[in-house]
């Protein structure tokens, strides 16, 4: 039924489009915008045709644009932040194609402030969206000097760190698993290394990162809280370059260049930590053979076949490895692969077809005598995606597409030798098929009113094979049913409407409103205060229903001082259904009956986010502040009262300043302050069998002390000499400048010096930490 509706709508739009075209003689101008130095396509570059009326658009994820305009004489302006704009006169009397290259400010060695269309943030109806500038990321101070997209993201309002030095993040009251993290469209299931202290994204390989905190466009779906869309560099189409860096924790190397000049290129980027290299110097043999490291490898290639077809192939492979000789081995990591074909059906219809694979798995090995075993666990998906972008006329930009995903979760496969005290067993795999279709239209009703509306339908089928149970209130098995491979266990259908509108009072002032529904079919089980590589994913089943979130938001956007400053205030309310917790004492590891112990409840989150940014000039930076509340309600927890979610933080403030002190020196500093985490502390104690046990009266009813920290960094760029390709730069950083002992955990225990008393002990992780990184490029 709904599909019919979409097609009807599409037809209508086409009809309306051609109608106008006949009346006014509309022609199409299309093409690609690239970086003049490297040939990389530019995402989100602005294209404007200024004539009797102004027509404008931005380039899509592949640098492609298409505009439908009436015949006439125009000034055509291409611009992109950090690049010098191009302006040319053009007379449109028929369809035209223009591919252009912009020159980056880096090559000009001057600050470019003449980017046109700087009020896009005011005009665009989409709310709660932030695009990260990769250059900005590189100059912001960070722990151990390891620049990190996810940690920079945490400095934006509405996005909170999951913990000290942690790359996990919470968006508008959602949990970490409610973020959809995409790397070249592939889902990254576990975006962190080494217990969360580093993200899996090596910023050398990253071209663009955009996060949607609400009002997600309809092409995205599958998670409740946010979408983080990260795109890898395509590779330099003009020259071979080698770039790298040596830091405290890790070294990096990137090689890129043309395969065939202007036609095809490749990029390979790697990173590896070397903390364990020092272990080799130990005289102890068990230390010598131990491992403790992680690595990331990003690779991408693209081939422009002809005017109409481009192929992209990209992949990511990363792994953490911990091991102690003859005792244990533990490694985990993500693998993703994306094959894409861009095809132009016509100058109005752009198509992208993607075939995507992603996998996260871990392997634990115990080599202890009489107790050897290994545990393998994995989650993976195969994803076929077809996206269309249709330029109907200049008022409508239509996107529609289909998405078919096959999910498999292998919760645990335990292997052991015959002599081991462990039995070899396997926990049944779970399979699911997700079919989604979407339609969206960005509709410029008039100069002041802009709409983005659409819908996504998502159909999730839990499939056999496997034995599925039903349970009573206490988690005892009521019924068993066994399904054959591919047999339907349970089907869930969801319609997700998305609508956003902006109304511009003037060129630099607007109000916006949006409503978004999101659903989530995969759920990460974690009741813990930290994340672990072994956290368990489950999917919808006969017992587990899709999580659903409805979010409404309103906002005020204002740019001033000639768009140099950007201010926004957003107010949101989010209602969440089918949230998941589990009973006390549930052991998630190797548990064949996890669903017996699940509890289902509701969530709500609301808040206000203020953001003030100075975008250009010698000194730039931003202040972000969030006032928020997020709660959960489960009938079986705290007698059904609403309680603070662990990610509830009342106040959250980030201040970022970047100062270009001289052509060579860039100084930057960040300050963060947030209310302490909502935690559960004891409200009493008792003795059992000679040990103190604590009594808890309410879930997350206490707060840890507030968190605050100041970081500083300085980057020394090389002197630019014409004709010299080799460049090197230095980054110096200080994390936690005033050595604040922020709480990581607070534990309650018997006083070791006086067993008759109890005490609270606070553990802090990182004091003041200096860092230095040397980067090179040739």
């Amino acid at each position, binding site marked *: 039924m709904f599909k019919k509706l979409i097609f009807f709508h599409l037809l209508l739009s086409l009809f309306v489009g051609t109608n106008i075209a006949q009346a006014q003689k509309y022609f199409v101008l299309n093409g690609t915008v690239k970086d003049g130095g490297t040939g990389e396509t530019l995402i989100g570059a602005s294209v404007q045709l200024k004539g009797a009326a102004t027509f404008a658009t931005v380039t899509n994820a592949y640098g492609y644009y298409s505009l439908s305009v009436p015949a006439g004489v125009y000034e055509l302006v291409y611009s992109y932040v950090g690049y010098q704009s191009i302006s040319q006169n053009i007379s449109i009397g028929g369809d035209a194609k223009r591919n252009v290259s912009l020159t980056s400010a880096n090559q000009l060695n001057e600050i470019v402030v003449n980017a046109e269309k700087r009020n896009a943030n005011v005009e665009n109806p989409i709310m709660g969206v932030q695009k990260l500038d990769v250059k900005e990321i590189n100059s912001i101070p960070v722990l151990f000097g390891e620049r990190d997209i996810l940690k920079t993201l945490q400095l934006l309002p509405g996005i909170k760190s999951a913990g000290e030095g942690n790359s996990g993040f919470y968006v508008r009251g959602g949990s970490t698993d409610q973020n959809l993290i995409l790397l070249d469209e592939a889902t990254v299931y576990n975006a962190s290394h080494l*217990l969360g202290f580093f993200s899996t994204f090596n910023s050398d390989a990253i071209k663009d990162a955009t996060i949607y905190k609400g009002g997600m466009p309809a092409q995205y779906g599958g998670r409740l809280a946010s979408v983080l869309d990260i795109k890898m560099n395509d590779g330099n189409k003009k020259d071979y370059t080698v770039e790298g860096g040596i830091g405290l924790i890790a070294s990096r190397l990137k090689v890129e260049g043309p395969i065939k000049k202007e036609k095809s290129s490749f990029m390979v980027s790697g990173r590896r930590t070397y903390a364990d290299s020092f272990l080799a110097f130990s005289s102890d043999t*068990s*230390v010598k053979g131990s491992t403790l490291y992680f690595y990331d490898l990003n690779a991408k290639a693209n081939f422009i076949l002809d005017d109409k077809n481009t192929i992209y192939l990209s992949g990511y492979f990363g792994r953490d490895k911990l091991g102690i000789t003859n005792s244990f081995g533990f490694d985990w990591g993500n693998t993703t692969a994306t094959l894409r074909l861009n095809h132009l059906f016509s100058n109005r219809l752009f198509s992208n077809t993607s075939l995507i694979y992603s996998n996260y798995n871990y392997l634990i090995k115990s080599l202890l005598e009489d107790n050897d075993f290994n545990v393998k666990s994995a989650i993976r998906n195969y994803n076929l995606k077809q996206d269309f972008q249709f330029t109907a006329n200049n008022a409508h930009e239509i996107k529609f597409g289909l998405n078919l995903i096959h999910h498999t979760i292998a919760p645990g496969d335990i292997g052991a030798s015959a002599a081991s005290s462990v039995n070899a067993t396997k926990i049944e795999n779970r399979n699911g098929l997700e079919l989604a279709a979407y339609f969206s239209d960005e509709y410029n009703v008039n100069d002041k009113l802009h709409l983005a509306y659409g819908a996504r339908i998502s159909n999730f089928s839990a499939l056999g094979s496997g034995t599925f149970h039903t349970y009573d209130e206490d988690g005892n098995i009521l019924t068993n049913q066994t399904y054959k491979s591919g047999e339907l266990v349970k089907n869930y259908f969801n319609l997700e409407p998305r609508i956003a509108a902006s109304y511009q009072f003037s060129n630099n002032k607007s109000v916006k409103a949006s409503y978004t529904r999101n659903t989530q079919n995969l759920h990460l089980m974690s009741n*813990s205060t930290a994340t672990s590589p072994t956290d368990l994913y489950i999917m919808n089943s006969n017992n587990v229903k899709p999580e659903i979130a409805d979010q409404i938001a309103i906002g005020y956007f204002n740019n001033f001082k000639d768009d140099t400053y950007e201010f926004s205030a957003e107010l949101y309310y989010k209602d969440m259904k089918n949230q998941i917790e589990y009973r006390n004492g549930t052991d998630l590891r190797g548990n064949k009956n996890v669903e017996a112990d699940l509890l289902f409840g509701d969530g709500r989150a609301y808040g206000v986010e203020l953001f003030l940014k100075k975008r250009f000039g010698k000194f730039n930076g931003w202040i972000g502040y969030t006032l928020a509340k997020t709660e959960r309600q489960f009938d079986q927890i705290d007698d059904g009262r609403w309680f603070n979610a662990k990610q509830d933080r009342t106040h959250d403030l980030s201040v970022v300043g970047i100062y270009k002190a001289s052509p060579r020196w860039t100084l930057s500093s960040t300050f963060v302050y947030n209310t302490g985490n909502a935690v559960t502390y*004891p409200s009493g104690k008792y003795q059992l069998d000679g040990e103190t046990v604590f*009594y808890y009266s309410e879930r997350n009813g*206490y707060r840890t002390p507030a968190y605050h920290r100041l970081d500083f960094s300085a980057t020394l760029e090389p002197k630019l000499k014409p004709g010299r390709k080799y460049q090197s730069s230095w980054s110096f950083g200080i994390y936690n400048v005033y050595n604040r002992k922020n709480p990581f955990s607070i534990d309650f225990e018997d006083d070791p010096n006086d067993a008759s*008393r109890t005490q*609270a002990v606070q553990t802090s992780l990182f004091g003041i930490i200096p860092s230095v990184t040397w980067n090179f490029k040739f």
Partner: protein
Amino acid sequence: MKNLILIFFAIGALALFNACEKVIDVDLKEADPLIVIEGNISDEFVAHKVTVSRTKAFTENNQVDAVMDAQVSVKDLTLNKLYLFSATNRFGEYKSELFKGAPGHNYELSVKVGNQTYTAQSAMPEKVFLDSLSITAISFFGEERKYVKVNYQDMPNIANQYRYVLYVNNEKVKGYFLDFDRFNDGKYVNSTLFSGDPELKTGDEVKLEFQCVDMNVYRYFFAISQIGGNGGPPTTPANPTSNFNNGALGYFSAYTKEEKSAIIP
């Protein structure tokens, strides 16, 4: 297996940084006192013990706030036989006459305090025999540590839950050592107890109390140990699910018991 993972986390964390600890003042709420009952019945021929107390504020000392005037009894539901308990001392301890619990029997503990009666049931599991204790040495990053290993033949085709209570030089080691045979049903089990404090030294006498407990009791102790990080990262603290009704804290366990000792070589 859970201990292995735990050790991994500890090593990973230590290798990364030197965490810093300090004692802090926390302003904690004071909940109204609640009844706490700890009841144990074993298959030994002894006077079994039930302790009744009340919760205290965090800032008070750890001495038991004893309830002296409770009426305590245990009923063998299988034989329909009642055992009365009487108060013995000022620590809230109530003791029965000498009797021996039997595996396979269901027991119900009933404690009346004022007008309120609290009851809990526990089924004494089938008895698994402790074969031996052995000592194993494991080297972590150049430091060799000794641990006690518990060796026994698990009973096939039924779920067995174990609780190990470890004593070093007659001092009970704090923490909870628990096992559940879902990974080694019917196998000859060697389970290493990764006890940290005190470290085992040559000449120490270790004693192990080997209990087969029912599922509720296993989960009760497992829930407490999870708060401290057993089986992965620490979980959000919560009261363990008690087998008592009417809101009493604590547990009632009917278990089988075996004991063995060893000297650390």
